[in-house]
């Protein structure tokens, strides 16, 4: 069931050269328009179904907050239409409208009334709010005596006291201690299970990948990518270094995974191979085995210097390991068009079982944000299995060794002495 539908949505801000121009446009009926329109959003078409978690990513100024404000109903679109079925709650500005002189309880009532609740409804919700905010007797103290964390907790508790149909969560949520963060995420997860649609804005790749079903990438007011979290986040990552949508390509591997390629294209990675101990290319390796990552780069334009590197990401997109030729003290210089450069990184695959992706980068300097020849996300996908070591959890294989010392509780003085030694 579609709960949120946007059709051809656009938002433009009017920009006048000065105040007098606006007055003239308002008051003189024959006046031609004296403003120009700045389009913050254009041609947004999006359908979100009930219970879906949609991630929204984009650089500063891409139009994320404008979109959220229109969904929340505080800002009006210039063209197109939007339909939201049900109550929308936005955790955009927590603690909004809290008055420092009034007590927490009075502020809860006031905030609740702003959300459109009646006093008796708020009184009913009050015990739950007090309980969730964990501020104890402070609830009857003026809010100005609260720490910022307490204000935040109370505000979150009020805003989520009742399950909304659509919940907008901005990054602001990453405030508070980890105990409260976990608690608030648990509440958001519960809402989702009960059918709340979640719109999450974040730059945190692992938050997006662990929560969202689908991600849209906004760039210069348009949706430039819609897709599964990992593909969209790769695209966004490429966008961050490239800032030009046209230079980003996404290609599907034979086995279905989408790789994202961006960069100037002076150099391209022609082949990525993960070789096992017998130098055979593989897609699955044993934990702890010796492997070689072979990256073959094709030089298309003469470049004075080059740094080649790679990253290994886990299934949440978290970087597990990454290194490059510069840090390993190997230089690649004076490369002419037509040359082929192969880098072989040998290491021991001390990772836990699971699926991983490899991103490769070739750039002029160490940071691929500088002069980026090519960045390739999800260039290779491989899995790690564990048949030889004891089964463990996590991505790092730390090879713990266990020794046990057992002291029986009834000890003779003699054995106690021994124990002391």
């Amino acid at each position: 069931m579609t709960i949120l539908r946007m059709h051809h949505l656009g938002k433009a801000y009017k920009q006048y050269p000065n105040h007098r121009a606006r007055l003239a446009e308002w008051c003189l009926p024959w006046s031609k328009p004296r403003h120009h329109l700045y389009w913050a959003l254009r041609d947004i078409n999006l359908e979100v179904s009930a219970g879906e978690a949609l991630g929204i990513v984009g650089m500063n100024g891409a139009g994320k907050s404008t979109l959220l404000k229109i969904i929340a109903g505080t800002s009006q679109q210039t063209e197109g239409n939007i339909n939201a079925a049900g109550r929308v709650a936005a955790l955009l500005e927590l603690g909004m409208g809290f008055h420092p002189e009034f007590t927490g309880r009075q502020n809860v009532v006031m905030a609740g009334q702003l959300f459109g609740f009646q006093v008796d409804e708020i009184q009913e919700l009050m015990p739950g709010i007090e309980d969730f905010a964990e501020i104890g007797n402070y609830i009857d103290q003026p809010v100005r005596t609260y720490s910022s964390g307490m204000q935040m907790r109370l505000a979150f508790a009020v805003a989520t006291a009742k399950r909304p149909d659509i919940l907008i969560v901005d990054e602001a949520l990453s405030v508070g201690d980890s105990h409260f963060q976990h608690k608030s995420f648990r509440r958001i997860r519960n809402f989702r299970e009960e059918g709340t649609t979640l719109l999450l804005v974040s730059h945190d790749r692992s938050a997006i990948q662990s929560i969202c079903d689908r991600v849209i990438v906004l760039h210069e007011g348009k949706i430039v990518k819609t897709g599964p979290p990992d593909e969209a986040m790769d695209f966004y990552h490429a966008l961050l270094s490239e800032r030009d949508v046209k230079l980003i390509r996404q290609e599907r591997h034979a086995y279905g995974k989408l790789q994202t390629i961006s960069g100037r294209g002076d150099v391209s990675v022609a082949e990525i191979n993960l070789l096992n101990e017998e130098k055979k290319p593989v897609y699955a390796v044993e934990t702890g085995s010796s492997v070689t990552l072979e990256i073959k780069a094709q030089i298309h334009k003469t470049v004075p210097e080059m740094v080649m590197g790679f990253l290994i990401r886990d299934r949440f997109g978290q970087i597990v390991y990454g290194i490059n030729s510069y840090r390993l003290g190997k230089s690649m210089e004076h490369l002419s068009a037509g040359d082929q450069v192969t880098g072989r990184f040998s290491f021991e695959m001390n990772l836990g079982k699971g699926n991983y992706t490899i991103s490769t980068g070739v750039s002029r300097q160490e940071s691929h944000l500088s002069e980026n020849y090519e960045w390739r996300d999800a260039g290779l996908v491989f899995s790690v299995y564990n048949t030889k070591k004891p089964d463990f959890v996590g991505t790092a294989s730390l090879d713990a060794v266990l020794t046990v010392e057992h002291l029986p509780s009834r000890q003779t003085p003699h054995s106690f002495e021994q124990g002391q030694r």
Partner: protein
Amino acid sequence: MFSKHIIALWSYRGFILGSLMRDFQMRYRKSVLGSLWAILNPLATILIYTVIFSQLMKARLPGINDTMAYSIYLCSGVLTWSFFSEIIQRSQNVFLENANLIKKLNFPRICLPIIVVGNAAVSFSISFGLFLVFLIFLGKFPGWIVLAFPVVCAIQAVFAIGFGIILGIGNVFFRDIGQGSGILMQFWFWFTPIIYPISILPEAIRSLVLLNPMVSVVSAYQSILVYGNQPDWLSLASTALLAVLVCFLAFHFYKKRSGEMVDEL
């Protein structure tokens, strides 16, 4: 067209009432005398006009040989004018003052001017209640005709809020309005027969002053409270019509500019 707003207002009645109570508490919080100040301020106004004008200056209204009559005349004009000007002054800032709420939360914005009127009504009923006590004390209570009083108040409030909303929206775009309205209100005050009786004006100017819609309102108050007479219902009706028209205009202005206004806040 309006029913949607009426429903929204009804479902936000808790917010409106709560805001009124909080605003009142806020004003006298952390003061030892507390809400006593709500009484002391209008009391001072009444005393000043009574003592200075009627006792020290011995000013008299033409045709009435009673020193108290002029002070009642003054108070009935000044107290009701301050109700009018409070609504206008507060509503021209209402959108700017609540910019944060408007930008961040989705709630019926029509609540905001209603709260302004409610706040002004609370302080006006305190000062006017005092004034009535003062009249009873002097033995000058006008009698049953005082029942016409709320009708005049309603006309005045509707006119004030319509006008105030227009100024409030305009003020978001052009701050000149906030600066200029103070001057406008001063001129308006002196072009309304509040301190002086209209009869002292020269004939030519009098017909000009009569174009001022507030004249009929203020003279209605005066005729009720000073003379105990029926107000001039006909001229009040024209002001009432104008008030409705201004509100209608304000509503349309709001509908046309509200989207742009949020962007501008």
